């Protein structure tokens, strides 16, 4: 950051969400521990599970998205983020290549639902309440649905990796992790 100016800078608005993820990336985000106090000098949280704000402001600077796209609601949320955030970051393995949820892609969705909900002795009730988001046939990485500006791999990326990535980005550098921080698992 530009240290020479003393005038307070506008804080960057950061929105976060978890789609077809496990919230592990969000938990890992909290592993930056007390550094979150430094971070909060530079950013403010908008829509996020951390604030419980339900929709993105129209002028978010950064959207951080965990998880891939597995149902219709994920698609809507992802579009909301793309529309309202200048920069989108895909965080974690699932957002980047679908991750473990995408291991269902080689199976037929009907077979999966039948195997779970229509076992002999368990009745035949595949949930179809309109409130429940419709499952997609396949789980997709984010960049197959909208343009993603940056990718931060890991399952989850460590707190240190997230810190390095965000501080690089906030300082105007291309984020670079290097050995020990770049991980696919």
């Amino acid at each position, binding site marked *: 950051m530009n240290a020479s100016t003393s005038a307070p800078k506008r804080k960057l608005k950061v929105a976060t969400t978890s789609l077809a993820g496990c919230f592990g990336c969000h938990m890992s985000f909290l592993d930056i521990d007390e550094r979150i106090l430094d971070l909060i000098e530079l950013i403010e949280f908008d829509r996020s599970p951390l604030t419980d704000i339900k929709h993105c402001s129209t002028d978010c600077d950064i959207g951080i998205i965990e998880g891939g796209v597995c149902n219709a609601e994920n698609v809507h949320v992802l579009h909301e983020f793309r529309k309202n955030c200048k920069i989108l970051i895909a965080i974690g393995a699932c957002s980047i290549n679908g*991750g473990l949820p995408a291991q269902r892609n080689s199976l037929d969705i009907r077979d999966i639902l039948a195997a779970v909900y229509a076992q002999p002795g368990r009745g035949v009730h595949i949930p179809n309440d309109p409130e429940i988001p419709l499952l997609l046939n396949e789980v997709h*990485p984010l*960049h197959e649905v909208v343009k993603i500006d940056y990718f931060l*791999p890991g399952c989850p990326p460590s707190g240190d990796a997230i810190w390095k990535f965000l501080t690089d980005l906030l300082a105007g550098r291309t984020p670079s992790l290097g050995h*020990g921080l770049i991980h696919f698992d």
Partner: protein
Amino acid sequence: MSNGQDTKSFFLDDEEIPFEEGQTIIQAALTAGKYIPHLCYHPEFKPHGSCKLCTVRIDSRTITTEDGQTVKIPGRAAASCTTPAQAEQHVESNTPELLDLRRTLVQMLLVEGNHFCPSCEKSGKCMLQGLAYDLGVMSPHFPQYFSKREVDATHPDVLLDFNRCILCELCVRASAEVDKKNVFSLSGRGNTKHLICNSESGKLGDTNLAATDKAANVCPVGVILHKRHGFEVPYGQRRFDTAPISDNPVQYAPVKEQV
């Protein structure tokens, strides 16, 4: 410029590398402690030249045009694992262009198979993953194939997860050349090319592969796995957790036969 009368040398990224007659560029480089990325090259096997990760440029030239501008004419691209070293050659490997090309090749391999590293027993010691880390591959870039591939668990000691095969043929070469068993082959062409087991049923359990065979211990990725040995080394202590793949290049150098 050569050191002595019988030692010849070439230049790799402007550093002088000695070599012996008959050595390939990658063999001489690794022996001299210079890492060139590779996947299908293995110090104990005949080069295969298929993955192209080891691509280098040879004898690029700089010319001055009539209006005084200097222009670089790129030299020919060649796989350093199949190209013999030649005296006074100028070889480039660590250039932004070649690193970009290698990054793209790794990304293509990652989307072609189903590489879910968090659930892969090879994670942390996988050459493809290690290379991706070293090259800074942060995204797959391309759309995933999500190809449908099988798992073969018919063998009592060895599991095959075809989802991760990169078709390097190291297992094919090991089984044919070292074990003399011909357990594996590649079948099909282009997009449909895939690894098969040479038994009547096509299953690994019906071959004579033993867990101690070279072929069962050579796979650079997570296809040929030993049952009951998954995730033995904790996260943080695995091979590429502790050192990047490019560390200590001589570990990949051909073992010198004493004359």
